[in-house]
Structure formats: structure tokens, C-alpha cells
């Protein structure tokens, strides 16, 4: 009985802390419509600040707590609202998700930069005081946490119901424009709610840090618990959010106490929060289709099949030349870049075309890799099976949340990624705890590709084929439906499209592409383990995809190369490892509203070069079109308004060659695989201008 009470008290303690963190999340979400994925990461940074102020600089714990929670955290929250999150509530969910994911990565980078990895401990408050309830020892810290959660609950209730600013906050939920017209200041309200929200994240983080330990990721992950509690409160009810937090804390405590200590079940205790999140997301009532205004995203035209095939061939040839005589280590890095690029293609489909965000895309790659590693003498069929298994898993993740949209779908993928990371991948039937599996190289038509160079080229071929398949899909009926569904789900519904199954198919296909990449990656590396597919990788993957352009296969290629470079640069320059995270996050924040990313600037540069040097280059190489590069086509065919299939024709911007006057009218020569990976133009010399022009 006394153990039960002990677990209960422990559960109430962590539940109280979760409730504090979650209430901050709910407050920010309800007043600004921004779901802050970085909420836990902010708490993590504030816990580091607290350590710095109290342990390193020697301020007594309570004044340090007041300083962090009362001054530094609210100032940070205010700053973030002003310069990062402003106006984000009106943007599509995918944009606000990307921005707050960037914020999360920036928080981790900042913490790593300012406080490099080292052993740090934070003591509980009043470490020597405790008392006894029903024969069970209760520390003063635990009691303080529980009391503080009550204070927070009462304080928030009073703020929202008894004060003018609280009324304005609630009004802001319904209609910020209306609030402005009646003399309210929605921006002030938003800044205040971010300030309070960040304070609460800080308070919760600091109260938990003595328990969890001062760790970049463990504290950031606490946000899953907060998400679960907040979603339990339907993202609007504070009392339910508190109840959700408490229930989660208790469930975790009892799981620790009563689940068996070995076998798979012993690990379940670590994943109660993502399980709980998954469960509450599934239990959410059906989302009403939102009716809004005409939205459109300007993306570049899609190149024709001939053009993409030509540039694909150019890429493969260029890589063949480039990799000749390359060392094993560099080849492995290039293969890794190809893996990332293919996973990013899956995001082009899901996010770029479909407008959905996955926070666990790398996990699907892990599923593909795991399947592949289990195969004996893997061949093309085996690779296909790996992709299909990943696709089926992706569809299964989307299936229970079929009725929901945007945010909840993304949260489901996050919960799934953490679940796989902490539970399934480490299980004995998978990679095993801290273990790894060996995987053989792929065999094609009975020949095993032993040389790493050959294998990397095969990966490039797979990238090209996948890219061409995606572009073909985009040009056709399905691509048009995808865009339509992204622009207006409500209109698609009233036109008779069952968006739910469409969405499941989209998720499945996207996961299958990621699984394909995972299978190829396993074959490349030879050994593969759970550590290769940590959920955090999916977040950086998403950021790189957005920064380099999530709407084009060119962006995927550039992004894959960039993501491969990140750890390389970090290990070469350990002094700025954290800073690199911050840089990419800031880039993602700046570019989040432009989904075409860096790729669009590459296209622009290409057009500039084309305009300036195109004529001269063509004069020297008169028979360009006959060299097997993307073919020439007459511009008049491309502009014909009555063409049967506009996508087939108008995108063939190669027709621009020889007609520089038209280049201005193009918004980008998006979509075709980029032909530069290393800065060296491939193919015969003198074609650099065209290469760049085509992206």
C-alpha cells in the first residue's frame, strides 16, 4: 500500500509539472493559434539558464527561479512573439509547424553552443526538507511543485475571467481583427500570452530538471507530455489540460511501479507520453473543414518528362564522372546525401504538393531499413518490399487520424516517431537495444553491387527515377487533385472527393518513398541500428527540406546534400556545432513562408546566367539539342492556351533556349533534378550556364 502511495505522490508531482507546462502551451495556442512545438525546448533552455544563474553564478535557488520565470522567460517569449511568431496564426498550419520546429532546433543549438555537453546537476528545491504522509516520504520539492500547479491554475483562471486583459485574450481567440476594431490590441495580447506561456514552460522545466537531468533532448521531449495533456484539453480547456497532465503523470508513475522489469513491456514505461498523445489525438472529435479564402502557392512550372529524363541522365553521368576514383569515406557521404535526398522527395510529395507536415519522416526510412536488413540477399523485389512495408506503416499511422487534419496529423507522426525511437527500434525483434543489424548490398538481376561507387550510382539512379515518377504524378490528374486538396479541402469535399482516403494514400506513398531510401541506406552502410533513425533527425530533415525548397525535386537534391554536410561540418568545427543548428533554424524561419526555398534562388540565378551568357554559349555549341540532353521544343506549343494538357506543355521551359526574351515570364524552372551537387557542372564543358539555368 505504501508503495502505491509513493507512486501516486510521484505521479502527482510529475503530473503537476506537466500540467504547468501544458497550460502554457494551451494558453499560447488558444490566443494566437500557433501550436508551439518548441514549447518544451524553451523550457529546456530556461532550465539551463536556471542552472547557470543558480549553480554557476551562485544565486540562491528561489531568487534564481524568480529571475528566470519572472523576467528572462517572459522576455524571451515576448521576443519570440514579436520577431518569430507574429502573424503565424493566420498562416497555414504547415508554416507554423515548420517555424516552431525551427525554433525547437534553434533552442537545442543555442543550448549546445552556450552550454557545451558536460555533467551538470540541478538540486531539487529545499533538498533537505521532507515530511511524511501515510507512511510515505514526500519531499518539499514535490509538495512545492504540486502547490505551484494549483497556484498556476488559479492564477490563469483569475487572469482569464477577472481581468480586462484576460477578456481581451479570450476575445482574441475568436477574432483578433474584431478585437482590434473595438480598440483592443491583439498583438499585445499575443505577446503577453507568449510571455506567460514561456514562463510556464520555464517553471515546469525547472521543477522537473532535478528529476530528468539537465539534458538537451530529455527536457525537450517533455513537451510530448505537455502536448498530450493539452490535446486532452482539446487545446482550449485549461481544467481538462490540468486533468490530462495529472493523469499522464500518474500513468507514468504506475507504469514504472507495476510493469515487469524486463522484456518489451519494461520499455513501455518510457513511452507512456507518446502513447497517451496518440490515444488522445485519435479520440479527438472530427475536425470541421475550415472555410476560408482563396489560397494559392506560387510554385514553378513542372518540367516535361523529356526534360526531367534528360536532366536525370545528366545527373547520373555527372556523378559517374565525379565519383570516379573517390575515396570510400567520401563515397559513403555521397550515398548518405542520396538517402537524405530521396527521403526529402517523400516530403516534396507530402508537404510540397500535399501541404501536410510529417514530423517523423525519417522513422519511415528506419522501417524500410529494418525490413531490408532482415532480408537475405536483398534484390529489387526485396527493396520494393521494404518500401511497401514502410508505406503500409505510414498509411497505418494516418488511418486512425483520418478524420483530423493538419496539426493533429503532424502530432500523430511525432508521437509515432518517438514511439518507434524509444520502443520498437530498440526491441529485440528490431535492431535491439543499442544494437545493430548487418545488411547486405543490393543485388540487381543476380549481380551484387559490391563496389561502393557503383552502389552510390545506383542510389542516384533511384533518386532520379523517384523524382521522375513524382513529377509525372504531379503533371497528371492526381497531382492536380493534390494541389486542389491542399488549397481547399472544403471545396474538394463539396465536389465529391473523399479526402480522407486520399490522405491515407498520400501518407502511405510518401512513407514508401522514405522506406525505399532507408532500404538503400541500409545496403550502403552494411550495418544499421536504432541510432541511425532517431526522431530528432526527422526534425532537421524537415528544416533542410523547407530551407532548400520543399516544392521541387531540385530542393530535395540540394537539401539532401546540405543535410549530409551538417554533421560533417559540426565534427570539423566543434566550436560552432550548436551555432550551425541555429543558422539553419533561422534560415527555416525566414524561408518558411516561401515554400520554394533556396531552390527558387538557384533557378533565378540560372535565369540570370541564361540571359547573360545563354546566346554566346549556344553560338559555340550549336547542336545542343542533339546531344541527348533535354530536347528542344517550340515555345508556341508551350503557350498554346487550348492545349489538351497544360501541364504537359507549358512547363517545358527548355523551349526558352534560343528565346531569352521569354525568360522573364517564367517564375522558375523548378522541378527538374539539379545537376550540381558539388559545384562542378557535369556533362560536357561549356554547358554550365544551362545547367544552372535548369536548376
Amino acid at each position: 500500500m505504501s508503495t502505491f502511495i509513493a507512486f501516486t505522490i510521484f505521479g502527482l508531482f510529475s503530473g503537476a509539472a506537466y500540467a504547468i507546462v501544458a497550460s502554457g502551451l494551451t494558453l499560447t495556442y488558444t490566443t494566437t493559434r500557433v501550436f508551439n512545438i518548441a514549447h518544451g525546448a524553451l523550457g529546456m533552455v530556461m532550465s539551463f539558464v536556471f542552472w547557470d544563474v543558480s549553480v554557476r553564478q551562485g544565486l540562491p535557488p528561489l531568487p534564481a527561479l524568480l529571475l528566470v520565470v519572472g523576467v528572462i522567460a517572459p522576455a524571451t517569449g515576448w521576443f519570440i512573439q514579436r520577431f518569430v511568431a507574429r502573424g503565424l496564426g493566420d498562416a497555414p498550419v504547415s508554416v507554423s509547424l515548420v517555424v516552431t520546429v525551427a525554433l525547437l532546433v534553434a533552442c537545442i543549438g543555442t543550448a549546445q553552443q552556450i552550454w557545451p555537453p558536460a555533467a551538470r546537476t540541478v538540486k531539487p528545491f529545499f533538498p533537505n526538507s521532507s515530511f511524511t504522509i501515510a507512511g510515505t516520504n514526500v519531499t518539499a520539492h514535490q509538495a512545492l511543485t504540486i502547490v505551484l500547479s494549483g497556484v498556476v491554475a488559479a492564477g490563469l483562471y483569475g487572469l482569464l475571467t477577472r481581468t480586462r486583459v484576460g477578456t481581451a485574450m479570450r476575445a482574441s481567440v475568436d477574432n483578433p481583427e474584431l478585437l482590434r476594431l473595438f480598440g483592443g490590441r491583439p498583438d499585445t495580447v499575443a505577446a503577453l500570452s507568449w510571455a506567460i506561456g514561456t514562463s510556464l514552460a520555464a517553471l515546469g522545466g525547472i521543477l522537473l530538471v532535478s528529476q530528468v537531468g539537465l539534458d538537451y533532448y530529455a527536457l525537450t521531449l517533455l513537451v510530448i507530455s505537455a502536448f498530450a495533456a493539452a490535446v486532452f484539453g482539446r487545446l482550449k480547456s485549461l481544467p481538462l489540460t490540468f486533468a490530462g497532465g495529472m493523469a499522464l503523470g500518474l500513468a507514468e508513475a504506475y507504469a514504472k511501479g507495476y510493469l515487469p522489469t524486463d522484456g518489451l513491456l519494461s520499455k513501455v514505461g518510457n513511452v507512456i507520453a507518446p502513447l497517451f498523445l496518440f490515444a488522445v489525438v485519435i479520440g479527438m472529435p472530427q475536425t470541421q473543414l475550415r472555410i476560408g479564402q482563396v489560397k494559392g502557392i506560387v510554385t514553378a512550372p513542372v518540367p516535361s518528362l523529356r526534360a526531367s529524363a534528360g536532366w536525370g541522365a545528366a545527373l547520373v553521368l555527372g556523378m559517374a564522372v565525379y565519383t570516379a576514383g573517390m575515396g570510400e569515406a567520401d563515397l559513403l557521404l555521397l550515398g548518405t546525401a542520396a538517402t537524405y535526398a530521396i527521403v526529402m522527395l517523400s516530403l516534396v510529395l507530402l508537404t510540397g504538393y500535399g501541404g501536410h507536415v510529417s514530423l517523423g519522416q525519417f522513422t519511415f526510412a528506419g522501417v524500410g531499413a529494418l525490413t531490408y536488413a532482415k532480408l537475405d540477399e536483398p534484390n529489387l523485389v526485396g527493396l520494393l518490399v521494404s518500401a511497401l512495408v514502410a508505406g503500409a506503416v505510414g498509411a497505418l499511422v494516418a488511418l486512425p487520424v483520418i478524420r483530423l487534419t493538419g496539426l493533429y496529423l503532424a502530432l500523430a507522426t511525432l508521437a509515432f516517431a518517438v514511439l518507434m525511437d524509444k520502443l520498437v527500434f530498440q526491441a529485440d525483434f528490431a535492431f535491439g537495444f543499442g544494437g545493430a543489424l548487418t545488411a547486405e548490398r543490393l543485388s540487381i538481376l543476380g549481380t551484387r553491387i559490391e563496389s561502393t561507387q557503383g552502389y552510390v550510382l545506383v542510389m542516384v539512379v533511384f533518386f532520379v527515377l523517384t523524382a521522375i515518377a513524382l513529377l509525372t504524378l504531379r503533371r497528371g490528374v492526381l497531382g492536380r487533385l493534390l494541389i486542389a486538396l491542399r488549397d481547399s479541402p472544403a471545396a474538394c469535399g463539396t465536389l465529391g472527393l473523399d479526402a480522407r482516403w486520399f490522405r491515407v494514400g498520400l501518407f502511405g506513398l510518401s512513407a514508401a518513398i522514405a522506406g525505399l531510401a532507408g532500404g538503400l541506406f541500409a545496403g550502403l552502410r552494411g550495418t544499421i541500428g536504432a541510432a541511425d533513425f532517431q526522431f530528432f533527425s526527422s526534425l532537421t530533415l524537415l528544416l533542410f527540406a523547407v530551407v532548400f525548397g520543399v516544392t521541387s525535386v531540385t530542393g530535395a537534391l540540394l537539401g539532401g546534400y546540405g543535410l549530409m554536410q551538417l554533421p560533417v561540418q559540426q565534427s570539423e568545427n566543434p566550436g560552432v556545432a550548436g551555432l550551425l543548428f541555429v543558422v539553419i533554424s533561422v534560415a527555416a524561419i525566414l524561408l518558411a513562408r516561401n515554400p520554394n526555398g533556396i531552390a527558387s534562388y538557384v533557378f533565378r540565378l540560372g535565369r540570370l546566367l541564361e540571359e547573360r551568357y545563354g546566346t554566346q554559349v549556344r553560338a559555340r555549341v550549336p547542336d545542343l539539342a542533339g546531344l541527348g540532353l533535354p530536347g528542344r521544343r517550340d515555345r508556341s506549343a508551350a503557350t498554346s492556351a487550348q492545349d489538351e494538357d497544360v501541364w504537359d506543355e507549358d512547363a517545358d521551359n527548355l523551349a526558352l533556349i534560343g528565346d531569352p526574351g521569354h525568360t522573364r515570364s517564367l517564375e522558375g524552372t523548378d522541378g527538374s533534378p539539379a545537376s550540381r551537387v558539388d559545384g562542378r557542372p557535369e556533362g560536357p564543358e561549356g554547358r554550365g550556364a544551362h545547367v544552372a539555368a535548369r536548376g
Partner: protein
Amino acid sequence: MSLLEVDHVVVQFGGVTAVNEATFGAEAGTITGLIGPNGAGKTTCFNVISGLQRPTRGQVRLDGRAVTRMPVHRRSKRGVGRTFQRLEAFGSLTVRENVRVARDIAGGARGLVRRSGADVDALLERVGIAAYADERADSIPTGTARLLELARCLAGSPRLLLLDEPSSGLDETETDAFGELLRDLASDGVAVLMVEHDMDLVMGVCDTIHVLDFGTVIASGEPADIRTDPLVQKAYLGYSDEGGEGDSWDATLADLPPVAHLDRGHEDDLTTVLPIADGRSAR
């Protein structure tokens, strides 16, 4: 039996009753107007009929069969098409592609097979926006976008057409042409149900008019009856012209800014807070 029957439908949002025991219908081959002051619940009724909003109580029937709990896309397959007051065009696609998407969806699995685009162009021609075929839908004028939504609906050959303020953004000539198009559709057997603030258009083309106020149908009948109904005048003007000779509608039409004209700039948030005549705040 009417094609569409809305039967004692109630919609509550929290404590607010947006639609209160509304009962009306629409017949095949006729044009029915649904009018009322801002905030009367017209668009909510459309959401209930098309399936975007589940009613708190009451029933919606098509051909006598209840469809109240049927999801949006299946109602569409049964012939319900609608346009939106706040536009829902596919902004990233061109006008022609917008209609092609609708045709692809309506064609089901057969829609995946490429077909000629001639029918799509014919539709654009019919609603009078062929000139915009290659423009992106987020760059065309509001009135044109409304016509685009109509063309998109027609691609699915609906039997019941719900038009939410279709003429706002159109000039006088365009509105006249639009009225003729509606008559045309009705003579093809389509049941047209239209929320509209242009009283000339409503009075000119509708066979039947239902007037909604505070979510309740306060009057139903032919245009001539609605014109003189004292309850209707009270709803619109805040007072009834009972002492008058009856035909005061035209005389007072100019006094109807909150209803007849202001709402045209539907993107303008100002309209949503202007108090309407009887002192209620719209919205």
C-alpha cells in the same frame, strides 16, 4: 415531394442558436431564394445542406431520403453542388484546371483516364469566363471567381445547386447575364437555391423566396408576397411599414445598405461589425 427538404433544422454554436427550427425546401426546375439580414443563418443553412456542418437537431432530405449524417463528398455524389460566400477556389491552379479538377472528381475512377478538355472549355464559355481560362484562380476578380465556383459545380452536373451570394462582385450587365444563366439551369431541371443580397436579382429570377431571420424562416412565398410582407420589412428595417400602401419595398431599397450593398465587399471585415438596422451586431 421536393428535391430538397430542410426539416426543423437547429444549429447551435455553444450558447448561440444560429439556425432555429428552419424548415424550407427547393423544387427541381425552380429557383428558390434564401434571403435575410446578415447573421440570419443563411450560410449556416447551406453548410448543413451540403454537409459541412452537422445540425444539432432536425433533418435534411434529398428526394425524401434523409442525408443529415451523410458526409460531404457523398452528398455531392447525390447531386448537391455549392459555391461559397468566402471563396474556395483552388488558388494555385488556373481557372481551367479548377474546373478540370471538378470534372476529374466527378468522373471517379474514370476521371483518371485522360479525356479531352472540350467539355471544360464549354463550361467556362457557358458561365462567361472563358477569357480567364489560363489565369491563376487567386489572381482573378472576385466576381469572376464566383462564376468559376459555379462552373466548377456544374462540372459535376448537380441536381441541387446551392449558390452563396453568387452575384456579389458582378456589374449590372454581368448580373443580368447571370440571371439568364440561372433560368437556363432551372429549365434544365436543376433546383437552384440561392442566398443573395441583390434584391433586383432575387425578385427578378426567383420562383419562391424564403426569408430567414434569427435562424427562423419568417416568411415564404412568391416574390410579390414577400415584397409586401410586414414581418420581412421589420426584419430588414427594424420597423414595418404597415401604414403604407404595401408596395414600399422599392422605395425603401435604397435604405438597405447593411443588407443590400455593404455585404458585397465580403472580404472587408468592416462589414461584419456594422450594426444592422435593428441594432443587432451583424455576425
